């Protein structure tokens, strides 16, 4: 099977040579269609930089990123905008809904931006809304919704144009545990039913336990990889394994001064 996303020795350096920060220092991995991949690491490990590079809001210093045969760094103008809008869906930690638009209008925003006729996506919107349980709040403004509802509206917005991959940046970061659980379950369901690949950056071991594979990043490099043994391994066991790696990552004996 062809990978949907291929990252090859990706580098991102900040600052001049004398005082350089290596946010990403040669990262290589692949995302397969329908894969649910998690990326974990402590603050400043470079995981958000990685996601931003893939979302093409940051230009990497070196390496290459290919999606469906397209070299992302060579994209420009309308191609680039189309990539951002149609090929990827983005889920933010703070939802980033436009607070002066209703839920419905927020979900349809990508279509408005990319001139997609509304009719086509009306059906999809209905399906998504029903699945994400947001049909009742579509006419409301974000200020009238709960955090969980907001994030699910945001999820509908990310999915409306049927992207090949969803980039999620700490999607549970601003949610309580109950809403976080609901969201993760819905994302897992979408991943399973629609075969949409998800690339999720997170701190939260709990959320990460929904993934099929997890990459651990430290100081801009891949430090470890975990694979969930489906269906033999329970989510609970996978969670325990994640915690172990996290413990090493954060306070592993090698790092104690």
């Amino acid at each position: 099977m062809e990978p949907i996303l291929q990252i090859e020795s990706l580098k991102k350096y900040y600052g001049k040579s004398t005082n350089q920060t290596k946010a990403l220092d040669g990262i290589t991995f692949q995302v397969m269609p329908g894969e649910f991949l998690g990326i974990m690491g402590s603050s400043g490990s470079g995981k958000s930089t990685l996601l931003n590079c893939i979302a093409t809001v940051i230009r990497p210093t070196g390496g290459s990123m290919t999606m469906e045969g397209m070299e992302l760094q060579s994209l420009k103008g309308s191609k680039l905008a189309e990539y951002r809008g149609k090929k990827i869906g983005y889920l933010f930690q703070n939802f980033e809904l436009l607070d002066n638009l209703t839920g419905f209008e927020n979900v349809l925003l990508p279509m408005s931006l990319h001139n997609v006729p509304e009719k086509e996506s009306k059906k999809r919107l209905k399906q998504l809304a029903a699945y994400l349980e947001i049909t009742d709040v579509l006419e409301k403004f974000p200020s009238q919704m709960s955090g969980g509802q907001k994030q699910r509206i945001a999820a509908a917005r990310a999915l409306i144009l049927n992207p090949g991959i969803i980039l999620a940046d700490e999607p549970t970061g601003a949610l309580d545990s109950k809403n976080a659980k609901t969201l993760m379950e819905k994302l897992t369901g979408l991943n399973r039913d629609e075969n949409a690949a998800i690339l999720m950056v997170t701190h939260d071991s709990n959320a990460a336990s929904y993934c099929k594979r997890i990459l651990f990043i430290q100081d801009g490099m891949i430090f470890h990889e975990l694979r969930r043994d489906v269906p033999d391994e329970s989510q609970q066991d996978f969670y325990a394994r994640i915690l172990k790696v996290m413990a090493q990552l954060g306070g592993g004996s090698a790092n104690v001064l």
Partner: protein
Amino acid sequence: MFFELVFRNSRRDRKENGLFFASLIISIVAFYIILSLSKQDVMIFLQEMESDAVNRLLAMIPVFYGMTLAILFFLIYFASKFQMERRRHEFGMYLMLGMRRRKLFAMLLAEDFRSSIISLLIGLPIAVLLSEIISLVTAKLVGLGIIGHRFTLSLNATLWTTVGFLMIKLAAFLILSGKISRQEIQSLLAETPEGTKRQMPAIIYALALVTGVVFLGAAYYMAISGASWQHLQKMAITLTMGLIGTLLLFFGMRFVMSLMIKVGKSNRKLQVFNFRQLQENVIRQSNTMAVSSLLILAALCCFGAGVAIAQFYGQAEAHVLDYTFEDNTAQDGEQGASNIRNSLANYHLDTEFSDLFDMKVGHIRTTEAYDDVFVMDSITKELAKLPESDARNVLLNNLSYADYPYLISLTGYNVLLQRAGLPTLNLKKDEAAIYMDTEFVTNDRIEILNRILSDRPEAQIDGASLRLTGNVQSTGLVTDRSITLSFALILPDEAFEYYTQNQYDVYVNGVLDSDIINGVSLMTAISEMNKKLDETGLDYESYLQNMGRQLFYIVAASYITIYLAIMFLIIANTVIGVQFLMSQQKTNRRYKTLIRLGATYKTLCQAARKQINWHFGIPTIVAAVSSLFGVRALFSGLLSSRIQGDFSKLMLVSGAMILFLCVIEYLYMTAVKRSSNRYLLTLMVPEREE
């Protein structure tokens, strides 16, 4: 360190917020120009001629100064508010780092003072230069020539400009910093302060909209029908209704907005987003928008009135006479005339005139009665037969009062006609011509009368019958244009002497010799002649004084109204522009989200452009529509019937005004669009958020 920070901050502010800085400079220029009015060439010239009126106008300058102070405060307050809002986060940081509020206050005050001084240093020279240019241009326009223009720096004006500017700047600063200092650090640090958005049921907005339109309609009806001009109270009611109507209209506008979002289902290129942005702005700032719209309306009305008044007074009648002499001390007119001629001859001034002729004007003295001495039933009958029209009705009304007319002797009038290059009148013994000053007639009235006169209708003067003939005459009898006769008869000399019983006034009219005028401007020639005439002790009226009076009206009316118009326009537009940019910066997260969702720079700029168009368009269109009524109302209240009748001209003035407005709006919109594009470009560069 403290001063280093002050220095850096104020320099950054100037660079980043050009609009704010520009509005400071505009304020300074506006202050200086109004204060230096007395130093304008035209004013200095007029002061010699019409010192009374000029002094009265100049005495009004403190009032204009006060007014300027008030409206500029509005401008500065708004621009400073924008400036402060931008820096909320920074202030929060200073406080978090342990800066005491007092220190922060002192720092801001120092920054404010610094930027004020720099604005003054830049603004004052611009103001002086501009005021000189205006002085030269107006002098040139009114034909003064640039006789001995001297560079004038009005110290008084400079002083008061500085004082006024610093005063409103300080006042705005105190209010704004008071507001900021009362806030919690947390809310200062928050990126976008939560605006309270109280949504009311749609029906309330709809009602507000309808009520607003009704109020506005009522106000305009009152103003145009003339009811408002009868009484101060009624005027106050009209103005209040207009104000409330506009406020309600803008308050209710959000109803239209949500309707447009619902109806316009197509959501192409961020249309819904644009409307939601606009709706939010209208909701948050409907009052500011209403006030801006009213300011634009005020500007249009001022401009319209200024242009119309200038045109009215500027309608120069043919220049025929240079001087008119009158001797009020003499027993009778003839005696007076010979006294004048003798005096002129004594001072060897009679040779300076190419023409000195008598204009004899008197009353009917053959009877003691004052009513129905002159009867022209045949004319009124003819008039009454004509189809109903304004001109006919006015004529009927005016002529019904003309039963005791002035009499003018033919010889003097014919000399006048000759000098004016017009055909002279030939009157037989029992014939007379009608004289009506231009002030009281319009072209269509003259046309009607001339048609009737061509039949030589009969009239009775003190019982004797008389044939009225020739065209209606209206050449000015004397130099002074403010002396006008609404209705008079021109009689052959014998008839004139008989009916006046040799009791009449004689005005000696003079035309300067062309040799004297050659080489120098007429103004200079008359000025010099005036000096010589002053020695003779004669009573005289010169063309120059007359010109001066007219000039004064033109200059005073148009200068002040156009000045106010431009001020209002600048302020309204700056406020609208600043408001837009402020809301754009406040909602920068939304734009960032759009970029994440794949909006290109071009798409964002397009969206912003559309928003700007609407943002400026709404208040401007409301003002433009209102101005169509407003200018009409102003004309019906202020101007004489002569101009009022000229409806097409009036529309022309309105049209020109709206065109002018469009140009100004276009300039402002372009400036704001540029600024917005620049800002959006900064958003395109991603920040490192971790």
